[in-house]
């Protein structure tokens, strides 16, 4: 009994309190069930979404950018594999140690370490951070070898652009850069959001951007907590950008650029008068687009911007110069077409023409005496064109000039092309608020005054005169195709498929004859060019016609005329521009060429030889009719 003494009361109290405790425990267990109900039934949708967001990552696959070749299949812009070392961090844990190890592999610069530390600490959602770009094989191997010690570090294969021809093709091909806000306008391609994507900024890279870029693929991946891809859930292949075959003949381009090297700056445009293909388009000096591809430094950029020769500027399409005497074909054609003169009209020249009190000088102070239209073109008699312009009137001249391509931007589509200025009555009234004067017509007649043009426009004009009045358009893209094996030049065309501008064929023939006389006639301002650089007469099959031009940068004052100051005595930037346009072969014109040497002083002696050499080389190579030099490309 003694063992159980008091046990009854004890067990009573124990039972009451135990039941109380048990009740409390069951209540708490029910609370757990309630919480589970709340999480798993009431809020399950929200958590399911969060879990999917955790797990699934949509990654865009940047398309491979289309390649650019010249017409013979030589590469102008290619993609180079760019091995990048990327790093992710698990919410900034162990970052210092990781950077230490990366330092042992790459010997990082102090600034790089600071940047990495900052970016990795800040990196949320395991966004990869670039450790280093353009890795060599050895560096890639070292990263892969040390992979177990480098959690979250991986090698990523990207592409960067390479321009094997450097400055030679810089203005035509252009370059790419990071996507800027203005590039996004009107484009909703999601691939543009990729930080590694490069976008065409200049040249063909820009004008063909939407074709070269291709379409992005997408891959849905499952990622784990540190952002590593565990497996691929879904993959949509993108489409690589289409490859482009340009009309440029790289060897001809190189030849023209070599010829231009003797001068500080200028431009050469060579065009097929039948197809409009641009076979060469040189603007000197150029720049190395590869510096843009790898990221240009501030000082390199400043140097390019500050140079007086403006290397970033594509002078072939954006350089604006008075056409000077090369415009005289327009005046003649307008006068003939408007019956203001006829082929037999002879006009006098005494060295100047007076309009009221103003004297309009001919370049030859002694005057040319009486000339007809072909003679006037041959000797470039200014007085003839003052009078012809006066008779034709500004409206007819402007009309013919517009049809020949002046005063407007071509259909080339390159950024930086200028319309230059074809003045007219309406233009002057609107821009200057003054009515058109007779003197303005005189100046327009010899391509001076308000008149400006680009080298491309001069080439277009020459081509349209040479081809018998067909409205050919300049063209840079010969062919494009996405699979590289399908990339091939189209068959040669020998008849323009552009509409005829309905100029009187006889009038065009007179203009061409005048240009023939410039080079091959005894009076011609450029008749030295009937011989080649070696002094040999050019063989008949390669004979060509042309027109010189010397454009005033600054008015020649009466005082300078009296003092007889020569151009060579002026500072470089005030000297005349030297121009030359030409086409050939004479009998069956196929190629036109326009040359401008900035501040080259005299068209016939500075620009002329370049035009001759380039045109002769073009005719010899005959790139438009030769397709056997095209290197068919198998995909690498």
């Amino acid at each position, binding site marked *: 009994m003694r063992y159980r003494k008091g*046990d009854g009361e004890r*067990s009573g109290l*124990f039972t009451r309190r135990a039941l109380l*405790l048990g009740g409390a*425990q069951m209540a708490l*267990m029910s609370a757990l069930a309630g919480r*589970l109900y709340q*999480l798993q039934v009431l809020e399950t949708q929200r958590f399911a979404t969060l*879990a999917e967001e955790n797990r699934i990552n949509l990654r865009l696959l940047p398309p491979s950018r289309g390649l650019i070749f010249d017409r013979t299949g030589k590469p102008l812009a290619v993609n180079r594999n760019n091995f990048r070392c990327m790093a992710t961090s698990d919410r900034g844990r162990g970052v210092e140690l990781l950077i230490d190890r990366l330092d042992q592999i790459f010997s990082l610069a102090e600034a790089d370490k600071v940047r990495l530390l900052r970016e990795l600490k800040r990196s949320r959602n395991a966004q990869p951070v670039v450790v280093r770009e353009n890795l060599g094989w050895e560096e890639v191997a070292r990263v892969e070898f040390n992979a177990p010690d480098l959690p979250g570090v991986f090698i990523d294969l990207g592409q960067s652009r390479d321009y094997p021809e450097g400055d030679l093709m810089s203005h035509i091909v252009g370059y790419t850069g990071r996507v800027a806000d203005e590039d996004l306008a009107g484009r909703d391609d999601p691939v543009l959001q990729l930080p590694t994507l490069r976008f065409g900024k200049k040249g063909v890279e820009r004008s063909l951007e939407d074709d070269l870029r291709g379409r992005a693929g997408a891959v849905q991946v499952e990622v*784990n907590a540190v952002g590593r891809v565990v497996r691929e859930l879904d993959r949509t292949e993108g489409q690589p950008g289409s490859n482009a075959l340009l009309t440029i003949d790289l060897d001809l381009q190189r030849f023209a650029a070599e010829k231009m090297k003797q001068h500080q700056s200028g431009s050469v445009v060579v065009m097929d008068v039948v197809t409009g293909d641009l076979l060469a388009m040189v603007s000197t000096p150029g720049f190395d687009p590869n510096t843009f591809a790898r990221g240009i430094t501030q000082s390199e950029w400043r140097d390019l911007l500050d140079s007086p020769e403006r290397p970033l500027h594509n002078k072939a399409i954006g350089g604006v110069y008075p056409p000077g005497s090369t415009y005289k074909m327009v005046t003649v054609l307008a006068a003939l077409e408007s019956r203001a003169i006829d082929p037999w009209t002879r006009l006098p020249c005494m060295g100047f023409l007076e309009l009221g009190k103003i004297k309009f000088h001919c370049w030859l102070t002694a005057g040319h005496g009486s000339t007809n239209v072909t003679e006037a073109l041959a000797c470039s008699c200014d007085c003839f064109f003052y009078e012809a312009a006066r008779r034709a009137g500004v409206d007819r001249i402007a009309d013919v000039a517009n049809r020949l391509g002046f005063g407007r931007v071509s259909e080339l589509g390159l950024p930086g092309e200028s319309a230059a200025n074809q003045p007219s009555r309406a233009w002057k009234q609107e821009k200057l608020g003054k009515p058109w004067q007779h003197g303005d017509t005189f100046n327009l007649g010899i391509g001076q005054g308000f008149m400006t043009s680009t080298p491309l426009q001069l080439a277009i004009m020459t081509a349209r005169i040479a081809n018998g009045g067909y409205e050919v358009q300049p063209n840079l893209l010969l062919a494009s195709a996405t699979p590289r094996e399908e990339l091939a030049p189209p068959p040669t065309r020998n008849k323009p498929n552009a509409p005829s501008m309905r100029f009187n064929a006889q009038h065009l023939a007179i203009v061409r004859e005048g240009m023939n006389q410039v080079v091959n006639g005894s009076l011609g301002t450029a008749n030295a060019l009937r011989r080649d650089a070696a002094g040999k007469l050019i063989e008949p099959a390669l004979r060509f016609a042309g027109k010189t031009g010397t454009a005033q940068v600054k008015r020649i004052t009466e005082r300078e005329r009296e003092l007889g100051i020569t151009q060579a005595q002026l500072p470089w930037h005030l000297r005349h521009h030297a121009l030359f346009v030409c086409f050939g072969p004479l009998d069956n014109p196929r190629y036109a060429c326009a040359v401008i040497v900035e501040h080259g002083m005299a068209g016939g002696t500075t620009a002329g030889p370049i035009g001759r050499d380039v045109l002769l080389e073009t005719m010899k190579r005959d790139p438009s009719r030769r397709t056997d030099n095209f290197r068919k490309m198998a995909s690498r």
Partner: protein
Amino acid sequence: MSIASMQGGGGALDAPAPISFAEKIWRINWGLVLVLTAIAGIGVLALYSAAGGRFDPWASRHAMRYVAALGVLLVTALVPPRVWLALSWPIYIVALLLLVAVDVVGKIGMGAQRWLVLGPLQIQPSEIAKVAVILMLARYYHGLRKEEAARILYVVPPLLLILMPVGLVMVQPDLGTAMMVLMGGGALLFVAGVPLWMFLVAGVGAIASLPVAWSLMHEYQRKRVLTFLDPDRDPLGAGYHITQSKIAIGSGGLFGKGFGKGTQSALNFLPEKQTDFIFTSFVEEWGLVGALVLLGLFALVLVWGFSIALRCQHHFGRLVALGVTAMMFLYVFINTAMVMGLLPVVGVPLPLVSNGGTAMVSVMFACGLLIGVNVYRDAQLPRTR
């Protein structure tokens, strides 16, 4: 009064006849054993899945450990309560010594240390301390009369018995286990008859001492409490665990994502998925249904425990059974409430499901004590002083 002298008077008239071995086996709560096995089976499933569909490294060892621990349970259940009564002191003292040892090793080893390595064994003294405190308190109150238990002076020794291990565990630091021992001890004091007003005073005192506790807490502990109070404070930092655990549980929905298809767990968004967060890992794949089954099994264990406690004829057994039940409850409640974001993350495993040897053995040993109370429910125990 010694045990030896008691055995002499064992054959008293009102004492029941000693039970046969077969009857002892019969009295083992095989249903309860089955429930425990089911829980451990769920543990194997969950660990298999958490390892990415592999038995290694967790599931296979978990199963083997359970088999061994089952042996411990059965042997413990067949040991008469008077032996445990006698062993209470030695076990308690050994537990205290081990706790001191682990603290000292921790000091030397610089940093938190919860394990002691003894040869091939890695033991967690705090797990032993939980059972030791239960045995010690049960022994103490077994020897007190009801009136004595209600006296304030008699509350001092048990408080010391509780607070000594609590203090030693706290400095490890292992807040979760310390709270478990404290609350488990409190539950025993409550059923043993300590007046309610004392609990009120203790409660008020605890609240009043919160600022002091705050100042004594480690930085990471404070962070956990703050994060618990507002998980969105730093969803990628300290709140990450709670947030990811809630996402895993919530995204499981009613029926779960399916066995082996838990994305949060497989992709390592879940921290400690094989130990403290095993419940989350399981529930992500099995949904509310699976969670309720598991919690239901644990509730069955609790009900069994209470019924054993209430049917026991001696106070020592009653208190041991209730102590073990309270310990089980605290394990389950603290762990699951923690992963559901109802309690701060304190590092308490889910018994029989979480990977870990010492906890498994100590839980099974405790359940062995519980079943032993049933086997020897009508044994006669001497009043101890």
